[in-house]
C-alpha cells in the first residue's frame, strides 16, 4: 500500500478541564477527538462531515501538528508526526498543509499578499533561493487565479473567495502532498464557492494532491470527495465511498444529517423523508455512555446505553457504521 | 465565585510582600545614600551624639545596617513584617502610631477618591457619550481636545487655577452675597471640616481631571463600537425609544471597559492626591505619604503605601467581580 500518504491511528485529543486554587487538578476532559482512524491515499479526497463542535477542526489541527495528540499516531508516509520535533518536524510540515475555514481571519491583516504567500519560503529558506522567491510567489498567485500584480495589496482589499485563494496559494507554496482543508468554502458565496471548489479540483488534477476536506455542507463534500467520514462527538460513526454514504446511509445520525440538507428543488417539497432531530448535541466534556448518539436517536434501546458500537461493517451496512441497529434508509431522494 | 475570591486573595500575598519589600528596600537605600533623616531634624545645628541617637531610635534608623550602602537590612524588614503581622505598624517620627495616622487620614482621602471617581464617571462618561453618539462631530473634537489638554497640563496648575478662579474669586463673591453654607462649601478654597463633602467637590474635580481623558475616550470608542453592534439594531427593531436603546442597551455594554479602567485610574487618583490634597489643604493619605517621604520616615511610608497597595488590590478585585456582574459572559472560576 505504498500509495497511502497519511494514516491516522486511534487518534485522541482530550482538552483537560482543571480546577484548583494553587495546584490545578484535572477534573475532566473535553473529548474533542476520541479514537479516530483514517487513511488517505495519493490523489484522493477524503471528506469529513459533522455538526459544529464534533471535533472536525481539532482533527485537522492534529493532523497538521498544530495540536499535540493525547494519544494515537499520525503517520505521514510512515513517519509519526506526533513524535517529531525540531527540524525534523519542520521538514515534515512541508509535506502537509492547511487551508483554513475563515478567509477573513486566516490572513494577517497587516501583511501584504506577497508577504503572506512568500512567508513559507522565509520559514523554509532551503526551498527557494531568495532571488527566486518573488517569481515563485507570482507563479503561485497565477496558479490560484489571482493576478501577480496584486502582490502588494492587503487581504482586506480582496473578496472572500480571493482571500481563500491566497490561503490556498500559501498552502501550496511548499509543494505539499497533502492539504487539509478545514471548511474552505463555508464562508463563501455560492458563485465564489464554486470557483474555489473548481480550483481545488483542478489543482488536485494538476499537482496530484491528496485532500482531507472538512465541511459541514454535505452537498459540497459529496461533490468533491471520493470517500466520506461522518463524525459525531469526536468519533467517526460511518465511513465509506460517497455513494455508500449518500445513497445508502445506515447510521441514524448520518440519515438525520442528510435528511436535513435542503435540496434546491421545490418539486421535492414534502416528498423527502425528513428527520427532525430533537435536542442539541451533548457536551463533549460529558458524552453519553455507550452509543453517543443514543440521546437523540429514535432507535435507542438498552444495549445502546451499555455498549459502544464499533465502526465496522455489519449486517444491514455494507460499509463501516457504528450503530447496533444499522439499516439502510434513503433520505436524500424523493420517496414518492 | 468563592473559589475565585480565595484564589485572588491568595495572589495578594506575593504582590503585597513584593511591594512591601520594594518599598522597604527603596527607603533603606535612600537612607544609606542620602543620610539619616534623624540628622535633618536638627537642621544647621550639629547635634551631639546622644541627641542624634535619641532621634535615630524614634526614626528606627538605629540599626547599623543603615550605614552600609546596599545592605538591604533584611533583619529590619523581617522585624517589620513580624510587627505588621501583629498589627503593629510602627510609629512616625513624632512617635504617633502609624495606625492612628492612617485612621485619621484615610477617611478623607477615601471620600475624596470616591467623589473623584463619581465625577470621573459622571463627567467622563457624559463627555464620552456626547462624543461617541456623533463621531467626528464638533462635540467629538471638543471632548478630545479638552480632555487631552487636561492630560497635558500638570495637575498642580489645574489645581492652582481652579482654586484661584472658583475658590478665591467666585467663592468670595458667593460669600459676599450671603450664599448658603453648602454653596460656599462647594467653592471653598481649602477643605472645611464643617462641609466634609461639599468642600471636597472642587478638589475631586481637579483630581478626576487626570483620568477624565481616558474615561471619555474609552466611553467614546466603546459606545461607537457598540452602537454599531447587532444587538443595538435588535433593540431598535423592537420599537424601543432611542433613549432606551442608547441608555440601556448600548451604554451598559460600553461601560464595561470603563469600569475596568477604573481600577487603573484608582492608582492615578491616589498619586494625584499628593498634589491635590496639598493645594486644597486636605489632611489625607497623599500628604501623609509625601511628608513621610520628605522627612524619611520609613515606617510611615512602608505602612501607608502597603495599605494603599492592599486597597488598590481590593478595588481591582471588586472591579473584577463587578465586571463579571456587568458582563455575564465572564465567569469567575
Amino acid at each position, binding site marked *: 500500500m505504498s500509495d497511502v500518504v497519511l494514516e491516522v491511528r486511534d487518534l485522541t485529543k482530550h482538552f483537560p478541564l482543571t480546577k484548583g486554587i494553587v495546584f490545578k487538578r484535572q477534573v475532566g476532559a473535553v473529548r474533542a477527538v476520541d479514537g479516530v482512524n483514517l487513511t488517505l491515499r495519493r490523489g484522493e479526497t477524503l471528506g469529513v462531515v459533522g455538526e459544529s463542535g464534533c471535533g472536525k477542526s481539532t482533527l485537522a*489541527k492534529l493532523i*497538521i501538528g*498544530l495540536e499535540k495528540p493525547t494519544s494515537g499516531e499520525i503517520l505521514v508516509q510512515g513517519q509519526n508526526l506526533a513524535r517529531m520535533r525540531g527540524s525534523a518536524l519542520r521538514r515534515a*510540515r512541508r509535506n502537509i*498543509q*492547511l487551508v*483554513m475555514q475563515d478567509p477573513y*481571519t*486566516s*490572513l*494577517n*491583516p*497587516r501583511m*501584504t499578499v*506577497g508577504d503572506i504567500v512568500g*512567508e*513559507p519560503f*522565509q*520559514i523554509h529558506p532551503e526551498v527557494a533561493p531568495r532571488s527566486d522567491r518573488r517569481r515563485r510567489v507570482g507563479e503561485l498567485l497565477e496558479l490560484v487565479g489571482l493576478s501577480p*500584480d*496584486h*502582490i*502588494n495589496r*492587503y487581504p*482586506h482589499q480582496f473578496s472572500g473567495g480571493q482571500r481563500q485563494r491566497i490561503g490556498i496559494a500559501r498552502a501550496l507554496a*511548499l509543494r505539499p502532498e497533502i492539504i487539509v482543508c478545514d471548511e474552505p468554502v463555508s464562508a463563501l458565496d455560492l458563485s465564489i464557492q464554486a470557483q474555489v471548489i473548481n480550483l481545488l479540483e483542478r489543482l488536485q488534477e494538476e499537482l496530484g494532491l491528496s485532500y482531507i476536506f472538512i465541511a459541514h455542507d454535505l452537498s459540497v463534500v459529496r461533490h468533491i470527495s471520493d470517500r466520506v467520514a461522518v463524525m459525531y462527538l469526536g468519533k467517526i460513526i460511518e465511513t465509506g465511498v460517497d455513494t455508500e454514504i449518500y445513497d445508502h446511509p445506515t447510521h441514524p445520525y448520518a440519515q438525520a444529517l442528510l435528511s436535513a440538507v435542503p435540496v434546491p428543488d421545490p418539486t421535492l417539497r414534502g416528498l423527502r423523508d425528513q428527520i427532525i432531530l430533537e435536542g442539541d448535541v451533548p457536551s463533549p466534556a460529558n458524552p453519553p455512555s455507550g452509543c453517543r448518539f443514543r440521546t437523540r436517536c429514535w432507535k435507542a434501546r438498552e444495549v445502546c446505553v451499555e455498549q459502544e458500537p464499533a465502526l465496522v461493517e455489519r449486517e444491514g451496512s455494507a460499509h463501516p457504521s457504528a450503530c447496533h441497529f444499522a439499516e439502510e434508509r434513503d433520505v436524500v431522494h424523493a420517496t414518492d | 465565585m468563592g473559589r475565585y475570591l480565595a484564589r485572588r486573595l491568595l495572589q495578594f500575598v506575593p*504582590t503585597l510582600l*513584593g*511591594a512591601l519589600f*520594594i*518599598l522597604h528596600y*527603596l*527607603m533603606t537605600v*535612600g537612607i544609606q*545614600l*542620602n543620610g539619616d533623616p534623624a540628622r535633618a531634624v536638627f537642621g544647621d545645628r550639629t547635634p551631639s551624639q546622644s541627641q542624634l541617637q535619641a532621634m535615630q531610635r524614634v526614626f528606627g534608623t538605629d540599626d547599623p545596617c543603615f550605614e552600609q550602602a546596599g545592605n538591604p537590612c533584611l533583619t529590619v524588614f523581617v522585624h517589620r513584617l513580624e510587627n505588621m503581622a501583629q498589627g503593629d505598624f510602627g510609629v512616625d517620627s513624632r512617635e504617633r502610631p502609624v495606625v492612628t495616622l492612617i485612621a485619621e487620614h484615610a477617611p478623607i482621602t477615601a471620600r475624596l477618591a470616591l467623589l473623584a471617581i463619581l465625577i470621573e464617571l459622571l463627567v467622563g462618561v457624559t463627555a464620552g457619550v456626547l462624543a461617541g453618539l456623533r463621531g467626528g462631530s464638533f462635540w467629538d473634537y471638543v471632548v478630545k*481636545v479638552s480632555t487631552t489638554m487636561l*492630560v*497635558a*497640563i*500638570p495637575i*498642580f*496648575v489645574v489645581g*492652582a487655577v481652579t482654586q*484661584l478662579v472658583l475658590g478665591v474669586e467666585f467663592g468670595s463673591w458667593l460669600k459676599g452675597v450671603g450664599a448658603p453654607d453648602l454653596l460656599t462649601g462647594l467653592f471653598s478654597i481649602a477643605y472645611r471640616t464643617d462641609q466634609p463633602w461639599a468642600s471636597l467637590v472642587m478638589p475631586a474635580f481637579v483630581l478626576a481631571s487626570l483620568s477624565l*481623558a481616558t474615561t471619555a475616550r474609552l466611553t467614546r470608542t466603546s459606545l461607537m463600537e457598540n452602537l454599531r453592534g447587532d444587538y443595538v439594531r435588535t433593540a431598535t427593531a423592537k420599537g424601543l425609544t432611542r433613549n432606551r436603546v442608547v441608555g440601556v442597551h448600548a451604554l451598559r455594554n460600553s461601560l464595561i471597559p470603563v469600569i475596568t479602567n477604573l481600577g487603573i485610574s484608582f*492608582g492615578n487618583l*491616589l*498619586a*494625584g492626591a*499628593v*498634589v491635590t490634597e496639598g493645594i486644597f489643604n486636605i489632611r489625607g493619605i*497623599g500628604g501623609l*505619604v*509625601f511628608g513621610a*517621604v*520628605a522627612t524619611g520616615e520609613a515606617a510611615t511610608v512602608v505602612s501607608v503605601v502597603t495599605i*494603599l497597595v492592599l486597597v*488598590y*488590590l481590593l478595588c481591582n478585585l471588586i472591579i473584577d467581580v463587578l465586571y463579571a456582574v456587568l458582563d455575564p459572559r465572564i465567569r469567575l472560576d
Partner: protein
Amino acid sequence: MTEQVESVISADRSAQAGIERSASLWADAWRDLRRRPVAIASAVVIVLVSSMAAFPWLWTRTDPRDCPIQLSKATPSAAHIFGTNELGCDYYAMTIYGARASIIVALVSTSLVLLVGALVGMAAGFYGGWVDSVLSRLADIFFALPFLLGALVFLSMLRSHSVWTIVLAFAVLGWPPLARIVRASVLATKNMDYVQAARSLGASDRRLLFRHILPNAAAPAIVVATILLGTYVASEATLSYLGIGLQPPEISWGIMIAQGQSYVTSGYPHLLLFPAAFLSATVLAFILLGDALRDALDPKLR
C-alpha cells in the same frame, strides 16, 4: 468579447497602480499619514520641538544661563520676546533649551516603557503558564504602587535627580499598564487563524511574535503610550513642583511651569503661559499623532 477585454484592461490599470506602491506596512502607514492634516500638523509640531531639543542653538543665540539679574521678570518685549524670569534669564531661550529635558523624559521614558511593557506582555501572553504568573505578579507589584507616589519614593532614594533618573523612575513604574495591554492583545491575537497558519508552516516563536502578533497587538499599546507620554511630561513638571524632580540650573518646561505658576497673579503670567503652551502643544501633538498612527497602521481603515 470586447467587454471582457475592457474589464481585463481596467484590472491591469489598477494593478499597475498597485505595483508602484511599496510593500511594507510602515511605508504604507507613512503614506497614509501624509494625507492627514491633523497628522501633518502634529508631526510638524513634534519636529519643531525635537529640533529645539536637539539643536537649541538653531533657535536662539542667547545663552539661557546668561542672566543679567537687573532684568529680572521683564515682561515680553522686542529684546526678550518671551520676557525674562526672576533671575533675568531670557525666557525664550529658556523655553527653547527647556524642550530637551521634557522631550527626553517623554520620549525615552515612553520608549522604555513600551519596550519593557511589550516584552513582558508578549512573554506573559505568548508563553502563559508560570511565565505568565510570575510576570503578572511582578506587574501587579509595580502597578499597585501609585505612580507618582512610587516615583517620589524612588527619586527620594536617588542622590541626584537628572533627566535620566526621572526617566528611570518613570520606566520602572510605568511598564505594567502596557504589559497588561500587550498581554491582553497577545492573548487575543495568538489564537487568531493567521497565527495558527504561520505556526503550521513551521514558523518559529520569534517569527510568530514579531511578525504576526506584535504588529496586530500594537495599536492599543500605541494609543496608551501616547497618552502616557503626555502624562510623563506633565508628571515631570509635577515632580519639580513637589521639589523632587529636576531642579535648576537644569532647564525644563516642568521646572519653568512649577516656578512660573506662583507668579501668575503677581502680574507675570508669561512665566507660566509660555512653557505651559509649549508643553500642551507638544503633548497634544503626540496624542493626536498617536491616534493617527493607530489608524494608519490599520490597513482596514485606509
